[in-house]
């Protein structure tokens, strides 16, 4: 049965025009574990009841690229090497002096065998079986340990030193992809390399035993085998945290928590509300993904998770406490993430809306339309008009020096959200004058849309190819842990098509990626191509 499936899949790959047939892109092969991955991996490797806490003091990675797993960030300075050394020793010490932890690694001390320990532990630490020469190398380290650890018996000393060594080894600290056998389109990753890609993608941690068993059985070389494991991993509760991590960074949700608003203007505001807006946004995003929703739902769903404070801001009637309850918001007032309090309040000042910021964010992060950096802004611009929209128009609209970017690209998007004040409450008036949220916007390819307000705009964005491509692009960047290259544009286009035309869920899009050549095969050429 399984064999038939494989044949069917291969046939589909050969004939289909789906994403799996696209060529892989050249990419760097040795991403270092992020600090979060180090933490999760160590916890899984030793079955620690809690995270070790050690990475909190690691030398931090610089903010390069969009996501924290971008390979450009993941270098090892002498400071970080030192942190790794200290942490490896701290964990190794803890394991050998904690009976429960030690017993998991050495269940039968009386009959323990060094070679067997190294082979078994090494498989998990390196996420692949050790080569014979490696076993010999670690045996030497193991056997030399007794002399420098007089406080332990010889076996324990060997275990201590082996753990410290393996946790400092490049095969632990990096996800090494060493396969070199070329086939037609590139170099397929081997079973264990695919297993690691999958586990770090979904769980930000090492493969579990089932995934290692699948690798050993050799079922991760074909798309169907990968899909089967990927589906299993996706359905594990740990995956939700990973998508949270993605959305948190993609939609810049972290910035919601530290907001400040004028409490005289906004009696519904208190300092804690920013954090609640963040939590609400994350719950919203989690639920779209976990309930098999797609990109369109992100922009149109009226599901919300509100507590007493947020219920007031959304004008939801009912009894609410500190807990977040699922509610349906008024579809005439809210549609998707962009009409949620967090986004609206983040892109606003203490008292007023900030249509420019709202417009810039949506262009950059929802449509993926680059906007050139602003020129030096002249001082003392004279604003006129009654509403925020009129004032901004008077200095950046038609006939001003801001016309090029603001009047046609930024403002029309930002103005659509004028129905929401600086903490995201719905409003029909601005300073006593009626809100005008209608506008029109031209996409880079010239296609124009007009809309009456943010609900209308969100619904139109939800069926725009640019928006689906933008989401796919960011998702792929996160899944691959690197900036995209020219060749990746093909798969982005295909994924966007699946998302828009086939209405595939985010889960299905993720599965499309993991079964693609982009994920499972690396290019045979040595140098990555230039950026798009």
């Amino acid at each position, binding site marked *: 049965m399984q064999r038939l499936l494989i044949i069917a899949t291969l046939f589909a790959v050969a004939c289909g025009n789906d994403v799996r047939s696209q060529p892989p892109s050249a990419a760097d092969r040795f991403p270092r574990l992020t600090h979060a991955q180090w933490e999760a991996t160590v916890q899984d490797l030793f079955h620690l009841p809690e995270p070790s806490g050690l990475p909190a003091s690691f030398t931090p990675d610089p903010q390069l690229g969009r996501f924290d797993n971008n390979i450009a960030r993941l270098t090892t300075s*002498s*400071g970080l090497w030192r942190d790794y050394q200290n942490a490896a020793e701290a964990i190794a010490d803890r394991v050998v002096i904690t009976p429960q932890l030690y017993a998991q690694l050495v269940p039968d001390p009386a009959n323990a065998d060094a070679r067997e320990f190294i082979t078994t532990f090494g498989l998990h630490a390196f996420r692949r079986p050790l080569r014979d020469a490696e076993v010999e190398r670690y045996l030497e380290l193991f056997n030399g340990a007794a002399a420098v650890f007089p406080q332990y018996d010889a076996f324990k000393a060997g275990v201590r030193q082996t753990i410290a060594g393996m946790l400092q080894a490049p095969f632990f600290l990096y996800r090494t992809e060493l396969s070199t056998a070329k086939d037609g389109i590139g170099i397929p990753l081997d079973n264990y390399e695919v297993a690691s890609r999958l586990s770090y993608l979904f769980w930000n941690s090492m493969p579990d035993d089932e995934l290692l068993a699948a690798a050993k059985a050799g079922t991760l070389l074909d798309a169907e085998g990968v899909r089967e494991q990927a589906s299993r991993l996706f359905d594990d509760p740990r995956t939700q945290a990973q998508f949270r991590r993605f959305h948190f960074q993609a939609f810049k949700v972290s910035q919601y928590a530290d907001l400040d608003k004028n409490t005289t203007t906004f009696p519904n505001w208190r300092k804690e509300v920013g954090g609640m807006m963040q939590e609400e946004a994350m719950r919203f995003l989690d639920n779209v993904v976990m309930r098999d929703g797609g990109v369109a739902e992100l922009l149109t769903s009226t599901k919300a998770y509100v507590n007493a404070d947020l219920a007031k801001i959304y004008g939801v009637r009912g009894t609410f406490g500190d807990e977040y309850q699922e509610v349906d918001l008024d579809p005439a007032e809210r549609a998707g993430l962009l009409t949620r309090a967090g986004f609206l309040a983040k892109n606003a000042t203490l008292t007023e809306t900030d249509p420019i910021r709202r417009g810039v964010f949506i262009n950059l992060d929802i449509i993926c339309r680059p906007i050139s950096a602003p020129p030096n802004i002249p001082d003392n611009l004279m604003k006129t008009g009654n509403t925020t929209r009129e004032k901004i128009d008077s200095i950046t609209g038609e006939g001003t020096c801001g016309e090029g970017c603001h009047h046609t690209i930024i403002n029309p998007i930002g103005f659509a959200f004028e129905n929401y004040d600086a903490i995201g409450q719905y409003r029909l008036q601005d300073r006593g004058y009626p809100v005008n949220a209608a506008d029109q916007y031209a996409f880079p390819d010239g296609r124009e849309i007009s809309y009456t307000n943010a609900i209308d705009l969100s619904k139109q964005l939800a069926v725009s190819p640019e928006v689906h491509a933008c989401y796919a692009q960011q998702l792929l960047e996160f899944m691959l842990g690197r900036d995209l290259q020219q060749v990746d544009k093909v798969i982005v286009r295909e994924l966007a098509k699946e998302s828009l035309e086939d209405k595939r869920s985010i889960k299905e899009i993720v599965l499309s990626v993991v079964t693609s050549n982009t994920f499972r095969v690396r290019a045979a050429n040595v*140098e990555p191509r230039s950026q798009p």
Partner: protein
Amino acid sequence: MINRRRFLSGVGGAALALPFLESVRFGSRANAGSPEKHVYSFFIRQGNGCQQAGYNNEPERFWPQALGPLTTASLASQTDRTLSVLADHAASLTLVRGTRFAFPGNGCGHSGGLNQVLTAANLTGEGKDTLATGESIDWFISRRVNTAGMEPLTLMAGPQSAYIAHGLSYSGPTQLRGARNNPFAVYTTLMGLSASPEVLQQIATRRKSVNDLVREEMQELLGNPELSTADRTRLDMHFQAIRDIEVGMACVLDDAKVSEMKAIQTQFEGNENRIKVAQFMLELTALAFACDATRTGTLQIGEGNDQTRYYVDGVLQNTFHRISHRVDSDGSDGTPIPNADMLHHKIDLIFAGMFKFFLDKLASYPGPSGGTLLDDSVVVWTNDLSNGPPHSYSNVPQVLAGGAGGFLKTGQYIDAGNVTHNKLLNTIINAVGVRNGDGSYYDSFGDASLQRGVITAMIK
């Protein structure tokens, strides 16, 4: 993070430790000449400019009233000026007006300034994602005055992730470094081991056998013929980082101070702890210098466009960035903030207070030349902009303290004459003891297009 080697016993709450393994080596990788003494250098960055004359008829509230010699009495009497806060240290100060950044920002003044301030390098990329095309002075100095494997301290008081996060320290072109922002974590890396010589020897042996094994593995990987340049560079950096040194140095603060650092372990990024974290970092820097754990470093206070909400006269204010724009907006347009120029000045006073705190700490430790550690240091309080709304790159505030072991002519306020600030950085590089191969002043830090030279008026 840090190599510990030498120790000054019984000072400033530090305790004894054992000198071990390696000996001092200066400038082992230097292409300029080698320094002959230890001079410690440190660079503190304030963001958003300072409140000084030059914008919209705002009065001068930063610099002293007159160029020339500085005395404690004269500086203390100018209470309307920010720098009067430093009056106690007048004899150690070198105040330099008239330096400017050479390269225009690419659409974001903050990012453009932040990336130039310690690199004097041209910029690449746009807006908030601008990067510097050269290494920063702390890394330049570190490679020449630190022993092998000793890195500069790269510190920050503020959030790790932000619109513009850390952007001060570059180990090479576009090689932005991550900054440590958790004081307790910094302390734990400074703190060494204390044990008997036998035990220290065992530790060194254990580590060496692991290092040897890891080196072998790294070499195998590096031997792979199909590595991309980026992979090779990344692995090689790791390979070079592996060292067999560093056992048995202790840099210790008193328990109460350590508990305070530990107490904010989970809130060190928070607004409320911004100044506290900055002060902890400065205290740790002084300790690190006193222990000779490193000889240079940087501290960025606040994000790229410092969004901290400082307390002025006990009242929590709008974000510093908005105050620096004088309006309730992160752009040029918004409701005016009342008395914003005075608020900006008062925030400058907070920074002056933090700098004084640092100078006090340095002056409390003895230095290698027999005076105080401050005498053997050159520490800089700088800015990535010169003033508020115009975000100008001219007349950037450059406040230096410490005599650099007698190299700098301290106790004066000078005008450098609108020169590019690479000349100031060149002067500092000479102050820590680096020279050209022929013994002449080192004069070529930063972008190759810049006019070379030092600021001779700063030199004794």
